[in-house]
């Protein structure tokens, strides 16, 4: 048989096998998202949203950690458990002894000491991923579903390994800048590292003009460059296509921002405490018009009514209370 036919047959495997993997994968896509062909910019923006959330949480943990004075006792699992003297949210320090099972109790917002290094683990309720931060609240990486990972100890070691080898952060930015400038010329305004994984940097490049790209950054048009630790560029995304480029080039971010403000006031009045734009995409809407679709996270003062949620198609984001996503279309062509 042809190899292609094998993949077609595999597409019909039993639902009970496929469903949990598909659901887990879809959840991952909505959470921490890695750079990959095509959807990189959208993924970066989503990652930023998560990072902002978890960074705020981790900052709290850092603050608590400074206040804490600890005494250490080994529990029956060989884990050193420190009990804090402050009164406040629980923060427990575990000293891993190399036994993966001793790490399985790690859940929401815990401090983990591995190989002599403190890292902060954070996991959202309902999300099996565990995000790790260092003491400077810099994102280190994440581990998917630690509960079911038989090599959890190795995974932790791998994730928190010293990322000091290879090029420096500054060099990564410089390489990304030069690479993007080779494509977009003087339109390149700024480069910023938004994610550091085991062997690569994800660099967000802000551009002066609104090229039709896979997505726009939260600060405007942009592209994403992945720089490997050996200094090579793995990929660069954010294409330039011919979709009403003239109309696009005339749009300013201020215009779209003011449009969003008006729409939120119009639809929700004073019910929204604050909002964040997490996505700007060029679309051709149902009427055949070119438009910028602007994705917004709205932080409501109180949980909106079911009627409001349904009327405006609000979607819950990141599992946080009173934070709902919606989108508006700014017609430009």
């Amino acid at each position, binding site marked *: *048989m*042809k*190899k*292609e*036919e*094998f*993949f*077609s*047959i*595999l*597409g*019909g*495997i*039993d*639902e009970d*096998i*496929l*469903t949990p*993997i*598909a*659901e*887990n*994968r*879809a959840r*991952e*896509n*909505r959470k921490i*998202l*890695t750079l*990959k*062909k*095509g*959807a990189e910019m*959208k*993924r970066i923006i*989503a990652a930023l949203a998560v990072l902002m959330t978890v960074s705020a949480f981790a900052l709290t943990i850092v603050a608590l950690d400074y206040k804490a004075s600890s005494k250490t006792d080994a529990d029956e699992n060989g884990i050193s458990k420190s009990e804090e003297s402050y009164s406040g949210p629980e923060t427990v320090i575990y000293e891993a002894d190399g036994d993966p099972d001793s790490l399985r109790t790690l859940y929401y917002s815990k401090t983990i000491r591995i190989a002599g290094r403190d890292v902060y683990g954070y996991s959202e309720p309902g999300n099996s991923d565990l995000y790790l931060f260092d003491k400077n609240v810099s994102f280190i990486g994440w*581990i*998917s579903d*630690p509960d*079911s*990972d*038989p*090599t*959890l100890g*190795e*995974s932790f070691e*791998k*994730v928190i390994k010293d990322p000091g080898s290879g090029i420096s952060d500054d060099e990564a930015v410089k390489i990304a800048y030069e690479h993007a400038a080779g494509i977009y010329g003087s339109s390149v305004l700024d480069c910023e590292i938004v994610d550091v*994984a*085991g062997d690569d940097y994800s660099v967000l490049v802000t551009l002066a003009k609104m090229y039709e790209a*896979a997505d726009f950054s939260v600060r405007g048009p942009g592209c994403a460059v992945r720089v490997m630790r050996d200094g090579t560029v793995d990929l660069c995304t954010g*294409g330039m*296509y011919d979709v009403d480029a003239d109309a696009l080039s005339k749009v300013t971010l201020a215009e779209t921002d003011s449009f969003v403000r008006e729409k939120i006031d119009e639809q929700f009045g004073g019910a929204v405490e604050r909002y964040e734009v997490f996505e700007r995409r060029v679309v051709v809407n149902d009427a055949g018009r070119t438009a910028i679709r602007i*994705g917004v996270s709205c932080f409501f003062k109180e949980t909106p009514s079911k009627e409001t*949620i349904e009327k405006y*198609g609000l*979607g*819950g984001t990141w599992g946080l209370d009173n934070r709902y*996503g919606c*989108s508006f279309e700014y017609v430009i062509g």
Partner: protein
Amino acid sequence: MEDNEIISLLESRDEKAIEQIRIKYSSYLFTIANNILGDDREAEECVSETCFRAWSSIPPEHPDSLSRYLSSIIRNCALDIIRTRKTAKRLNSEYSLSIDEIGDLISSDGIPEDEIDADFLRNSISSFLRSVPEKQRTVFIRRYFFFDSLKEIAVFNGMSVSSVKVTLFRLRKELKEHLMKEGYYL
């Protein structure tokens, strides 16, 4: 929005369902299509086509899992595009890499397609996948159903890339032995 709410919107013919599918699943669907096609534009078209097919098929369909249902649609959509491509151009995609990988599972002198009972073969593959540990099953499905890259699979499973490669190699070998025992020499 929860999946059952999206399905309810579809069943009540409310177009907001499409918007909600896009908000919740566009990135997920895009990556699946792009893994297969290696082409942003075609992948975007597949996402739109998937929304349309979901709109057309629900109702009467009422999937238990929307993510699984949508992934099957977009996978088929992308594979359809591959089949209709006139030229045998070398695809820059994970799909093309996967094609190479399964060379040790399927040989050119195996049973012709028209002599294979697809349902039996599908059941046999399902039976094999049920028999392997969950993590290995996940690695296999992510590679050959979703066509995720080895690196992505490694990251999301807390494994090294080489470990993923070895796992896949062993699974292909075991699957081949399993199928041969059941009379399939692919």
